[in-house]
């Protein structure tokens, strides 16, 4: 019997507690006092309280210093988890600020509550090394996201997307749970480190890849592959990105990606340590690395090639997200400390750029009634500041220097190539990634061409952009430029935390 230090547990979970309290506060305030006000006022107050809660949690995380590992990895606290949690909270605040000017719902309190609950799920997700906690927090995150997707009740697309998301998500959760149960069977433990030592023992006994382990591995990859929208588990992504209300889509595309990628990496690199195998050219060794190498290659190919033919900007962003998931999976293939740093840098800057891009799409949708490419015609003349921000976001996604996306890519490629032994064994993946990012420039330029080259449709005048959104967009664009010109600002934090 292990004595649980309740006080310590509570103290470790204090940031999460703050967020949950803020969530309940928002709900109570909205239901009790603000029902009669206009939606915008309600959204402003709710978002303000929620943002304060998140900021409080960030503050608490910044103050916390200790390293902790409660109950064999149930709850972990170290500089790395704190860094990821801070990133998640900042992204949540930005999503809340973007959603202030939304008009798609009357249920403001519930909407903000769900965003905060999803955030809580993500925070627990990244702070755990235990299969049970990982699964439960993943479900908390996923269930909140399903509802957030369906929140636009007036739009049939939104419900359809949510249903698809839910069905696919339910199935992948089943896969994940199945895999986890097999892992428990193998190791008699739900802790990642113990699972890893059990796998190592199998190795020592001469069973290099136990069939049960193979099944566990594949189902786990399927489950997480769904969360990160990697091909061929990506089918929900285009519909959700297109159908969900813009702030929800932005949230799914940014914050939930950060959390999922981080925990995916932890599960594979810590939990499956010992069953890696190798994907180096002409040195294939079975294990999870070759599986992920194939998933990565497929995602890059499919995402980039299908994005070319999209005419809806949201779907285009969805396919580009699949492609970016492919790039990020490269970090798994090399699974070193350096590649974890590269992954975190990449996913953080990617989240900023995508969040910004969705913010711009949201404004354009509200003002022109759609997100087709044609709706972006002549945007640079109608909303110059917004267009400049979009210019930066899309080029960062395409990996053009001096923007953050470029350094993210280069650092990722360097970390993949630098893997020992046998440098350049993974060159084939890097070549594919670089070739595909050359393809990606084509479709990002299609959007920018509409904005800068095409003339605005007749009768359209300057676009009114909500001031708060504009400020958020400019901040995000500034961050993307700054992190591109001075990557070390973020990188040295990540490197110190690792």
């Amino acid at each position: 019997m292990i004595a649980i230090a309740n006080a310590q547990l509570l103290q470790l979970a204090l940031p999460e507690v703050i967020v949950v309290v803020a969530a309940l506060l928002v709900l109570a305030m909205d239901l009790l006092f603000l029902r009669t006000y206009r939606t915008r006022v309600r959204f402003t107050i709710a978002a303000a309280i929620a943002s304060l809660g998140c900021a409080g949690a960030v503050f608490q995380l910044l103050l916390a210093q200790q390293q902790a590992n409660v109950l064999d990895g149930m709850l972990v606290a170290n500089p790395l988890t704190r860094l990821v949690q801070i990133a998640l909270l900042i992204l949540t605040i930005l999503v809340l600020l973007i959603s202030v000017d939304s008009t798609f719902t009357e249920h403001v309190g519930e909407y903000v509550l769900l965003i905060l609950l999803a955030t809580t799920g993500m925070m627990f997700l990244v702070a755990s090394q235990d299969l049970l906690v990982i699964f439960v927090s993943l479900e908390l995150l996923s269930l909140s996201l399903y509802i957030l997707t369906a929140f636009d009740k007036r739009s049939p697309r939104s419900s359809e997307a949510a249903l698809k998301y839910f069905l696919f998500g339910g199935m992948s959760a089943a896969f994940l749970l199945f895999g986890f149960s097999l892992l428990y069977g193998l190791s008699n433990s739900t802790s990642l480190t113990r699972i890893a030592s059990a796998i190592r023992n199998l190795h020592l006994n001469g069973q290099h890849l136990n069939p049960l382990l193979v099944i566990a591995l594949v189902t786990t990859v399927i489950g997480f592959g769904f969360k990160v929208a990697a091909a061929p588990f990506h089918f929900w992504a285009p519909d959700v990105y297109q159908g969900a209300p813009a702030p929800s889509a932005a949230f799914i595309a940014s914050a939930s990606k950060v959390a999922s990628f981080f925990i995916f990496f932890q599960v594979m690199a810590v939990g499956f340590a010992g069953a890696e195998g190798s994907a180096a050219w002409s040195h294939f060794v079975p294990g999870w690395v070759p599986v992920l190498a194939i998933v990565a290659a497929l995602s890059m190919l499919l995402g980039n090639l299908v994005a070319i033919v999209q005419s809806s900007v949201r779907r285009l962003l969805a396919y580009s997200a699949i492609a970016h998931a492919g790039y990020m999976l490269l970090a798994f293939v090399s699974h070193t400390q350096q590649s974890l740093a590269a992954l975190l840098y990449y996913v953080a800057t990617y989240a900023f750029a995508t969040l910004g891009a969705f913010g711009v799409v949201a404004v354009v949708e509200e003002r022109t009634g759609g997100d087709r490419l044609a709706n972006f015609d002549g945007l640079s003349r109608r909303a110059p500041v917004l267009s400049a921000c979009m210019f930066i976001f899309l080029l960062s996604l395409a990996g053009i220097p001096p923007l953050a996306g470029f350094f993210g890519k280069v650092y990722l490629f360097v970390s993949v190539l630098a893997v020992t032994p046998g440098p350049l064994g993974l060159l084939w993946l890097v070549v594919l990634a670089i070739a595909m990012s050359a393809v990606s420039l084509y479709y990002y330029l299609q959007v920018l061409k509409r904005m800068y080259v095409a003339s605005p449709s007749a009768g359209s005048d300057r676009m009114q952009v909500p001031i708060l959104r504009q400020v958020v967009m400019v901040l995000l664009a500034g961050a993307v430029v700054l992190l591109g010109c001075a990557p070390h600002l973020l990188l040295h934090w990540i490197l110190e935390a690792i």
Partner: protein
Amino acid sequence: MMLAWTIYISFLGALLLLLLPKGSVASARVLALLTAVACFAITLTTFAQHRTGEMLTVVRAPWIPSLGIEYHLAADGISLTLLLLTGIIAITGILFSWNMEHRAKEFFAFYLLLIGAVYGVFLSYDLFLLFVFYEIVIIPKYFLIAIWGSTRREYGAMKLVLYSFVGSAMVLIGLVAAYVVAGAKSMALGDLARFPFPLHFQMWAFPLVFVGFAILAGLWPFHTWAPTGHVAAPTAASMLLAGVVMKLGAYGCLRVAMTLFPLGLISPWGFHVLGLGSWRDVFALLAVIGIVYGAMVALVQKDFKFVIGYSSVSHMGFVLLGLMTLNQIGLSGAVVQMFSHGILAGLLFAVVGRMVYDRTHTRDLAALGPMNLNKAIPFAAVAFVVAGMASMGLPGFSGFVAELMILIGVWRAFPLLAICVGIGIVVGVAYTWRAMQKAFFAEAGTESIPPQPPLPPITLPERLGAIILIGASVVIGLYPQLILNVIVPALNSPLFEGLRKGSWQ
């Protein structure tokens, strides 16, 4: 050091232009011109002070310490020469865009962004930094052509961008691999050039990086972006593309591919395919094909601007061939040719795009002939005749010096190819002559129809621009020592040690 300010001033100018109030066209172009002149003045001052041509550190500061990447700018004789070229083309490009009214602010902003990035490439010593600037160049090119261009502009712009981006992707693969193989400690050119890369690595990395850069230099058969891009671009952008951007490619070939992987260039494969025994033979042959092919195709064009577009391919072939000679005279000839072609292509595109097309709204040689333009706009005719003479290599102009040096170098290295080059030069005379005749002089016997309404006269900025460019060509033609004095020491610097050890004659 002041030289770094060329980059900052250009970017700052671009930013200021965007902040100007709407509709201030006149102040936009004056601001752009002042920016370009300031950058040129800085370069010229440094050029005058720094007469030895050796590597000169401009700025050096840690940038991304965990990867050993530095913000390191440096210049030697080769980069100084090309910086001067950039300054001249930037100024004259703005002079020839003086009539720009449509979204002028944005035009000059993109223009200065492009110029600033070009300065950056020529000044970068750290290869990561060089690559950053090299890729920044791509985006403004696209918008300059797609927004302000003519004939099939969106197609031309996209084609150009994709070619450039594919090229830079190849360069990126090579650079990242080289960085990792060398121990992932430094991206500085000197450090990587000193590292003894294994031969088998150099054997694939060299062609990869070389072709990646050479795509931008118009290497046959990857040249097809050049004519369509040049034709679609507005005048100032064609001047920049042909004058400066193609030089970025050639500069990258010399500065990066050849210094990093000299063995990949020199070492024989150990077997022969069609008589070719090393990458050097292959690229020399491709360069010669480019020279002859570009000239032949230019000979049969109906569109005036396409003639100039293909002539660029032909002339850039000389540069690449000069690089492949690997002897001092050939290499310095290649650098002089970069300068010379930059100036002359700029002038030719200015005459065709600004002086002729903006006035007559046609570039069809058959339609231009009957207008008898040498009567209507005599200055344009004179400028074109002079530029044509210079580019076909008449003594007294820069083209002569450059081509002569390259020919001597080729004669020493590949005697057989020298004959083919001779053919290329003869065809070069023919297409220039044909274009001149058809565009400016009505054929004897046909009725000349003066254009209606009468063409507006050549303006002062145009005259000024043409005189600057012709002047630059004549100065280098009469006194090539001016730049050779800095180019030769640069080629003899430790950076090119690897190449010299191989086969420097």
